[in-house]
């Protein structure tokens, strides 16, 4: 579960970009004739191309006018809320028979649902009512605004979407329904609100809210819950809702699977869009959603039970006559074959997509996996990997299957390929445990032997030929200044004030040594973090840019030094910049000394022992911070009050420097584009 969230974080960055530019890059020819790309989750949590999962097979074009909703009942009969024509259009794909109900009653049907008794429920946006028809189109009941007082006097009742459970309780999504889904019983009595969205402003938005006008607050940073936009019900009666929001608005879960208390139980909520239009759940519990906005234009996605993305496909192109290219998809439904029916309100048609052999393989494997038939699922997942080596879900599920089999080696390999760190951690724990059980004795013996060997070596060192020569050389090195400078490092740990004295008064550290130490510090950090740190603790960023890595480490150090020096000169501290410059790098001594051992140890740790790493890092960085403060205090000879003031001002200065940089940056870009434009106009026109 955690792993999926982990992957999600990486995902959020890359997904959106890929969707905007969905051009095929290398001509993998069998896919070139398909006008849309199919994606799945790759090994780094990013979207990757995969074999086509769904192929367009059928178009329903029956003179629709802005149709808003589609539903398919258990017998595969298709119902479309043909809003502009004020009717419900019903189509039987087997016989090709079509019929219409609700003519003359409905004016702007926006939601349609059919229950197990084949009764048809319609939400009408113009009449603001929900209608209950029988299969022949005879009106059984109308659901009007509840009269109960606890419905709320100001609460809106503008039904847009409707679903009904097996008890014939009616769930209604109302436009502007901040209180949540309106739940009525069969007779239209109000039972309460359900699945209310939480108000959740980001910190930044909360700050900005203070400076907003009333209108802005209402539209961007309202403290009233967002109303849900659409809903679905699965065959266990679980309700799913979707809520659309704009990029900068409060954080809401775009897709929710609600438990009985109305809370979201999706764990791998694979969000790449804030604009889901419709949701549908099939018999196996797979979730189908379609979204439509500028960032994720007309993408249909298939998610597993817990909301983890399996496939995404489709694209938006207005005026296109190609299948899989939409104008404005507004509804989605799935029949018993697993065919996906997508309603397009601007294109006024329905496009139907059928599973390919590949998608069938993947979905069947997932089904076996969900039913814990790991032997079957692993056979199929192996076949999936043959057809797409970058299918993370398959590798990770295979890892799990191997784990159940106790095939640790293969399991580790699969988890590693999938970058499923939590899976890897669990198996690694097992492997390590086995290793310890097998090798504990022999390890102890080896340690004993080595200890003995060292003991005797030390005892008889003078009788070894050439020992004195080497010893003399070592003594020589010990007398150099560089050795002395380096040996100041460990002294920082024991007595930082001593070292400050050395730097400040005895001037025993040369500038060039400090510069070399800075350089070593940068590369030491890069190498340990990216090459020595254990796999489980390493960051999973796809691309590491050297210049960025250098800046990330070097800039804070330099910034602290410079800001502090600027403040010192105001506060008439005693230190020179030279002292501060050297002092800062010496303050980092705990990192120099402890990072490497910690990172090496991390290679044999799992997430169960993650606290060791966390604690180690905390001590290391905390100690460095304390050193830094002591260093500043001693170099400038501050009293405690002065020190606190100095630290606050230093932090403030750092902030100001960053802001100045940003402003200059913007100005420079502006100036550049101005001169560029000028140049182009003068010379090119």
């Amino acid at each position: 579960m955690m792993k999926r969230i982990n992957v999600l974080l990486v995902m959020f960055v890359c997904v959106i970009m890929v969707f905007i530019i969905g051009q095929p890059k290398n001509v993998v020819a069998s896919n070139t004739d398909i006008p849309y790309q199919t994606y799945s989750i790759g090994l780094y949590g990013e979207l990757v191309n995969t074999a086509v999962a769904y192929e367009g097979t059928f178009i329903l074009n029956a003179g629709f006018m802005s149709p808003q909703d589609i539903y398919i009942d258990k017998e595969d009969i298709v119902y479309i809320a043909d809003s502009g024509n004020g009717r419900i259009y019903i189509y039987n794909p087997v016989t090709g028979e079509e019929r219409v109900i609700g003519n003359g009653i409905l004016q702007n049907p926006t939601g349609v649902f059919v229950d197990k008794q084949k009764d048809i429920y319609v939400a009408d946006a113009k009449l603001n009512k929900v209608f209950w028809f029988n299969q022949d189109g005879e009106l059984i009941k109308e659901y009007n605004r509840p009269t109960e007082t606890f419905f709320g006097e100001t609460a809106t009742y503008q039904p847009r979407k409707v679903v009904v459970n097996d008890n014939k309780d009616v769930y209604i999504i109302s436009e502007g329904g901040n209180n949540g889904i309106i739940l009525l019983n069969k007779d239209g009595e109000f039972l309460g609100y359900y699945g209310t969205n939480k108000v959740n402003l980001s910190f930044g938005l909360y700050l900005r809210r203070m400076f907003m006008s009333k209108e802005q607050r209402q539209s961007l940073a309202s403290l009233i819950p967002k109303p849900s936009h659409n809903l679905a019900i699965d065959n266990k009666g679980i309700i799913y809702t979707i809520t659309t929001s704009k990029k900068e608005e409060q954080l809401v879960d775009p897709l929710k699977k609600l438990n009985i208390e109305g809370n979201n139980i999706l764990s791998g909520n694979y969000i790449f869009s804030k604009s889901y239009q419709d949701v549908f759940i099939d018999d196996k519990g797979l979730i189908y959603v379609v979204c439509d906005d500028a960032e994720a234009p007309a993408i249909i996605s298939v998610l597993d039970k817990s909301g983890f993305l399996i496939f995404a496909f489709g694209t938006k192109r207005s005026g296109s006559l190609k299948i899989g290219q939409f104008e404005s998809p507004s509804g989605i439904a799935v029949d018993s074959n697993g065919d996906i029916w997508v309603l397009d309100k601007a294109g006024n048609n329905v496009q139907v997509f059928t599973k390919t052999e590949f998608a069938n393989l993947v979905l069947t494997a997932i089904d076996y996996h969900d039913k814990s038939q790991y032997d079957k699922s692993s056979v199929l997942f192996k076949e999936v990997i043959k057809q797409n080596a970058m299918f993370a879900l398959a590798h990770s599920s295979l890892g799990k299957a191997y784990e159940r089999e106790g095939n640790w080696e293969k399991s580790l390999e699969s988890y590693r390929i999938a970058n499923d760190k939590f899976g890897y951690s669990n198996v690694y724990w097992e492997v390590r445990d086995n290793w310890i059980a097998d090798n504990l004795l022999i390890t102890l013996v080896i340690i004993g032997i080595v200890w003995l060997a060292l003991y005797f070596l030390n005892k008889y060192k003078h009788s070894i030929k050439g020992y004195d020569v080497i010893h003399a050389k070592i003594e020589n090195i010990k007398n150099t200044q560089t050795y002395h400078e380096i040996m100041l490092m460990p002294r920082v740990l024991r007595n930082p004030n001593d070292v400050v004295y050395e730097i400040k008064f005895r001037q025993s550290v040369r500038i060039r040594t400090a510069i070399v130490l800075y350089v070593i510090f940068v590369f030491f950090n890069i190498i340990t973090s990216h090459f020595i740190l254990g796999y489980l603790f390493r960051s999973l960023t796809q691309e590491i840019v050297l210049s960025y890595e250098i800046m990330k480490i070097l800039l804070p150090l330099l910034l602290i030094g410079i800001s502090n020096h600027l403040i010192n000169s105001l506060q008439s501290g005693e230190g020179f910049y030279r002292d501060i410059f050297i002092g800062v790098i010496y303050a980092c001594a705990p990192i120099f000394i402890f990072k490497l051992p910690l990172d090496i140890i991390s290679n044999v740790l799992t997430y169960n022992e993650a606290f060791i790493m966390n604690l180690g890092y905390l001590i290391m960085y905390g100690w460095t911070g304390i050193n830094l403060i002591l260093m500043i205090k001693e170099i400038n000879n501050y009293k405690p009050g002065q020190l606190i003031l100095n630290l606050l001002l230093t932090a403030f200065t750092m902030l100001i420097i960053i802001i100045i940089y940003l402003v200059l940056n913007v100005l420079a870009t502006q100036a550049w584009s101005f001169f560029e434009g000028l140049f182009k106009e003068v010379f090119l026109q």
Partner: protein
Amino acid sequence: MKKGKVVLLLIAIITVVTITLRVYANNNSEIDDIINELEQSSSTLLDSNLFTQPDDLRPYEQPEIDMSEYTEVYRNTNLTFYVNMNTFAIRVKYNNYIWSSSPFQDLENFSRAWRNKLNSPFSYTYFSKDDNDVSRSMLDNQEILKLNMEVNDNVINFKVDIIDKDENGFSLSYYITINDHGFTLNVPHEEIIEYGNFRLFTISFFEFFGSAKLDQIPGYYFIPSGNGALVRFSAHPKVNTPFVSRFFAQDLYYATNLSGISLNYPVFGTVHGINQNAYLVNVTSGAEYAEYNYWPPKFRTDYHMQYVNFYLREKYQQAVPSGNSVTVIEKNIKPYDMSFDVTFLANENANYIGMAKTYKNYLLNEGILQNRWEDKELAVHLDVLGGDYEAGLFFKKFHKMTTVDDILVINDDLTSQGIKNIYYTLRGFNKGGNVDASYKNYKFNKKLGDVNKLKDLHIAFYYDATVIHRNKLNAPIGTLKTIDNRFSYEMLDGGKYYRYYMDIDRIVKELPDAKKYFNQYGTIALAGLSNLFYSNENHMRSEMYAIYHNLFDEPIAMYNPNVIMLEDTSKFLTIPFQHERLRFFSDNVPFLQIVLSGYIPYYSSYLNFSANKQMDTLRLIDFGGHPAYLITYQPSHLLSKTFSNNYYASYYGNIDDNIVETYQFVYNALEKVLGEEISNREVLAKGVVRVTYANNVQIIVNYTDTDYDYEGAIVSARNYLVRE
């Protein structure tokens, strides 16, 4: 140590379980069972336009036609040509069927402008004073234009003149030359004259010819999208707007992206009554400026319509410094002749197969299609990826995916399993890898071994001279500049890479050197140029034919070439097995394969990337092609951080069995028909197809999930049967 013992015990138990499971899992038939257990829902697929549907073979009786307004102007043994002297609409009687350029009935339901349009021999668009394009038909403008006709034996000269030469208008002539089985329409460019400020934009002849009302006529249109598509006449159109597409796609010089549809062959056809009456239109001159049009019924009229529209000028958007753009219209009309052949087909030829044969004959007569078969042996095309670069922390990291030695291992492996004829194309073997395979970066990367070792194999080098990839927005020297003075490029992977299109003059300079270099080791397998047909500021698109042809002195392998490059094609690689999936298509037909069959060997798209492996293998047998794969010797996931990250299924270790199995499966089917021409193809039932070759061998392909009884023999589900 107690824990250790527990763990040991656990290990023992787990090992036993593992072994049991292993034995269980290694049981091959068990695996097959599980995979075969997968429910197949192919029926929706078989009903879709991705397959050829059974024909509606109802005989179509044409209603009695009133010919009173029509005058017979020419007659030969096969056809009679009529002209309406008032409107100059034409009618042609062939095989006792009357084809008309105007509707026979319900003209009174249309507005005057529409009636004029439907009766007019041609329609045109021109630019108004404010640069908007205005659509007119000939009969709309009788006060300005007059039309005369002159008949000289089998040549009819229609002359359009402007009545008052001081008015804005134009004059032109079109000639209809009648032959045994059809006619040719020709418009010489020197006879198109514009008067005043008149600026012609497009012109189209006989838009209504071959039209069909709703589903009244059993028949279809044929459109050369991909390998071929049909639009069967139905009363329920799948789209509400017309479809237009340039032949050979939009010229890159005028367009900024390639997202459009590309019709690689400038032909289209109409069938009225399947196996009864049909004709094929072949645009023989001016296709590079022409556009195909299909109008669905219920859009303006109740008729299915298709015609070709010729562009005399291009218009484009020019950006201006204020950030807006203005429409710019070309000053002069393009100096090219418009010409198309109409060939009528009757009875057993009145279908898409007959059309393919007609077009094939044309290509043979023109010398475009020549026999390129060497040995009539089933081959496998292996497109091998050498390697690609990944941006690393300190250095770029080169992923060696397949070395020269690996290719030799693969070759030994496959030949030992009975695959005799393997055709290798190598990509990413240049320095810089696949990402950097630009027009001048083709030298072999020595890290991958000594290419001379491959001399005994049949190899060619993938070479696409039209593109350079960069990971910055920084146009390389030689990038094509579009007419509005911008560099021609596309953004890939959300801005991680940019694809720049090269100016053709650059390519012409570099290609001979590249050829010389490659010819030391093998030949070129040409991509890019093979189906991208574009011009630049120095040359018009009509001049490009000669420039393209001059690049090659001998035929080479080409990736999906258009008709322009067909003459220089020795092997047709990655042939489309589908149309371009337009919603209104009803069928997928192997028009292109029928045209090529017996002359140019063609290879499939890469089957390892197929999402419907079984179906695509059957389609390969149905359409008669060689299988193809894109492979790497190392696992594909190594490519996940490189430009080649969409080669997700290339790992040889995963697909080697599949290559051998598919080869055997296809070999047994096509063994006797390699290098033979396809002479007929019929759909016997939904998902069952019978293909007949010139040597009378028949292959019955069954795409369905149930066995098919063919004349007493069983064609098993998802299988085929060969009959001699």
